[in-house]
């Protein structure tokens, strides 16, 4: 089983940074999910656009609010980040990288829809997207900085 030797970022294991970003994303997605599942619209304060995006047909997939999928993705990413922190298993980092990349691709589409189709931007959705991009970039940086070095099973890197 491949384990990676991990160089800290800002003196911290990168998995913990990913975990913090996952928690932020989870909080945002959970708020949006609760509001939308209750039939309401998110509060944007002085920034307009949340209502239009939330009520748009693009904000649901198969009748389920997109934010609910965001909750699922964030929980999965958080689990992977914590598991990677505990085990240094390279596959867990790769899974985090892959899932966050898939999320970033969807987020790019969703931002395009908001700007060019709906004509309104939901600041909560944008914040979730930024956290997702940050998670993807960190996972990518970790990979670029070092490939797995120890190939023996049961040996921590």
């Amino acid at each position: 089983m491949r384990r990676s030797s991990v160089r800290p970022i800002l003196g911290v294991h990168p998995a913990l940074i990913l975990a913090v970003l996952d928690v932020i994303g989870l909080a945002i997605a959970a708020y949006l999910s609760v509001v939308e599942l209750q039939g309401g619209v998110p509060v944007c304060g002085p920034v307009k656009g949340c209502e239009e995006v939330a009520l748009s047909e693009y904000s649901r997939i198969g009748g389920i609010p997109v934010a609910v999928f965001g909750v699922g993705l964030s929980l999965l990413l958080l689990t992977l980040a914590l598991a990677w922190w505990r085990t240094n298993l390279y596959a867990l980092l790769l899974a985090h990288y892959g899932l966050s990349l898939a999320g970033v691709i969807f987020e790019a589409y969703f931002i395009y829809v908001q700007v060019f189709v709906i004509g309104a931007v939901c600041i909560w959705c944008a914040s979730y997207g930024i956290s997702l991009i940050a998670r993807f970039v960190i996972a990518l940086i970790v990979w670029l900085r070092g490939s797995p070095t120890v190939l023996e099973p049961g040996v921590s890197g």
Partner: protein
Amino acid sequence: MARRNDTPLTRRERRAQARLERPAGQRQRPSRHAPRPVWQSPVVLVTGAAVLIGIAIIAFARPPEPPGGAGLIGPPTTYAADLVDGEDLGSATAPVVIELYSDFQCPACKLFATAQLQRLTTEFVVPGTVRIEARDIAFLGRGSPDESLELAAGAACAAEQDRYWQFHDLIFWNQGRENFGDHSAEFIGRVADAAGVDRAAWDACMARADVRPALQAATTAALGAGINSTPTLVVNGQPVVGVPDYDQLADLIRQLAAAASPAAGSPAPQ
């Protein structure tokens, strides 16, 4: 069994001896496999899989096409002819007037039209408490043709035949995607037919040069007056922005109706 020193070593023995003589750090067995090509590396494979998954999610997430040739969804509300006057709905002497600012491509307006308008009409318009004056604006359209503007033009032309509210409801119950070409001239014409307009007169109206500039001017005026979100309901001068909470809206109507006719004690409809 010990081997004599002068006996030549076999090839296997020589390899084993060389392995033992190598420094510890170099004692790893060389890989039997040639280096894998880059495209077979885990990161590349995971990246490819993630891109495919992302694209698949997007394909699945795209909203379905709006109702096409199979017909239109029929709105549940019917409007008595004596309540309709162009774009106005309700008694001319109603104590409460709601100016309803909408863009026909606005999803929140659809929510208001499909979830609250029928109840509002039944509880307050029909009894004579409220008159709704539609103020269509076209600010969500992008490109050419501007779908918001074309929809508003269709509604304005339907209003000339007092078929505005039928047209209004049909549009919202069959609303397509914003700026996706779903509200084509053919779609708008089909809605006009379903709304019961005299099609020849409606077509002539749509071809007129003064219809769209009037709507554009109304949009500019509304934006200038601070109406920058739809729906916006201006209830006897009080703006209610966004899809209202129906109970709060009903309370406001009752208060305004009572204030407008205090002698009656205002037995407002419940």
